[in-house]
């Protein structure tokens, strides 16, 4: 309970900084999820137009009418863009997490000196992100729903926006966060605490 109070207090104490970081993560995730959704229902596009070319298949003799060709080009470029956006968002997420853990290197060392074991430290830091990460992911998903609905108004044929896309993406991002946090904490917690305190 004390840890929960401390996490909430720390969140509001560094309010502006955290708000900007979480919001930017939320926006990044929203973009990534929208584009993932786009890829998802673009592949469903093929169900509506079974005779059209699949994005993964090249048929040199296949003849398409002009409308289909334009849609295909648009879809292919969006696919490339979505992969790049997702990579950028993930890199930014990993970078932010790395810098957060590095910032608290001396805190890890002080806790170790005062009796914390490796599991104590891993539990503490992983647990903190259990509170913060869902907020960011939820913001991203909410933004995605609005953006995706608005965007799909442009199409006569609408593919379904399954909740599984959001749940799957959210879980995947949460997993990435926990892995990065735990890996960094493990590395720092295994160092000699005196080295960390000296360098501060």
């Amino acid at each position, binding site marked *: 309970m004390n840890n929960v109070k401390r996490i909430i207090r720390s969140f509001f104490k560094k309010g502006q900084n955290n708000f900007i970081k979480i919001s930017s993560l939320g926006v990044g995730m929203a973009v990534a999820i929208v584009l993932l959704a786009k890829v998802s229902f673009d592949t469903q596009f093929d169900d509506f137009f079974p005779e059209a070319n699949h994005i993964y298949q090249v048929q040199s003799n296949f003849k398409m009418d002009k409308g289909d060709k334009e849609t295909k080009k648009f879809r292919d470029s969006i696919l490339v863009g979505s992969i790049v956006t997702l990579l950028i968002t993930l890199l930014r997420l990993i970078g932010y997490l790395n810098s957060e853990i590095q910032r608290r290197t001396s805190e890890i060392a002080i*806790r170790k000196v005062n009796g914390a074991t490796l599991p104590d430290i891993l539990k503490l830091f992983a647990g903190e992100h259990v509170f913060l990460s869902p907020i960011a992911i939820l913001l991203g998903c909410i933004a995605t729903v609005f953006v995706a609905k608005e965007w799909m108004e442009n199409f006569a044929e609408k593919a379904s926006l399954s909740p599984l896309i959001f749940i799957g993406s959210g879980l995947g991002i949460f997993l990435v966060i926990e892995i990065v946090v735990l890996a960094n904490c493990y590395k720092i917690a295994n160092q*000699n605490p005196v080295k960390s305190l000296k360098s501060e």
Partner: protein
Amino acid sequence: MIKIESLKKVFRTEEVETVALNSISMQVAKGEFVAIMGPSGCGKSTLLNILGLLDNPSSGHYFLDNTEVGDLKEKERTQTRKGNIGFVFQSFNLIEEMTVYENVELPLTYLKVKASERKQRIEETLKRMSISHRANHFPNQLSGGQQQRVAIARAVIANPKLILADEPTGNLDSKNGKDVMDLLTELNREGTTIVMVTHSQRDADFAHRTINLFDGQIVIETENLL
């Protein structure tokens, strides 16, 4: 209480090998207050880190309460250190995001002390260190002297047998420095063994005995007249 025999510590990098401690032997009796002095780089802090089980010697023996602890693994060192050894650092090393109360509480949480007992012990300790009125403040709201008093409170909250102080007055003015030394002396009078590293002869004069190191070796030991 503390006995080290032919203790050696060598730091190795790819290019250089540095002998920080060169086969030193010494003893510290229970309830004694020992000051370790010497120029920068003589091995004082390395010795303190080994005494505090923050590091292992390269060779030699370290007995704490007649138990060999020099070759313990990391997990065993943490377990031995918990509740038995308190640390006071030159730069206080308080956690900025935690209040004074929470900083002092830290060792007790890792000792799994019950909440009600924790509260009582913290309040008593803060009162003793004359810092209870700042219990809900953060370290950056305190003066240097107050921060060091909080650090000492954190070091003594678990009633450790041994306190290791690494230049505890190094970042303080003379008045606050004297207050900190008076606190440590009072703790020692109550039976806590203290080993303190210091550059200051004035601070060393508070101790029962002074050990001078030079280039990783003990050059002289003097008994202080108190």
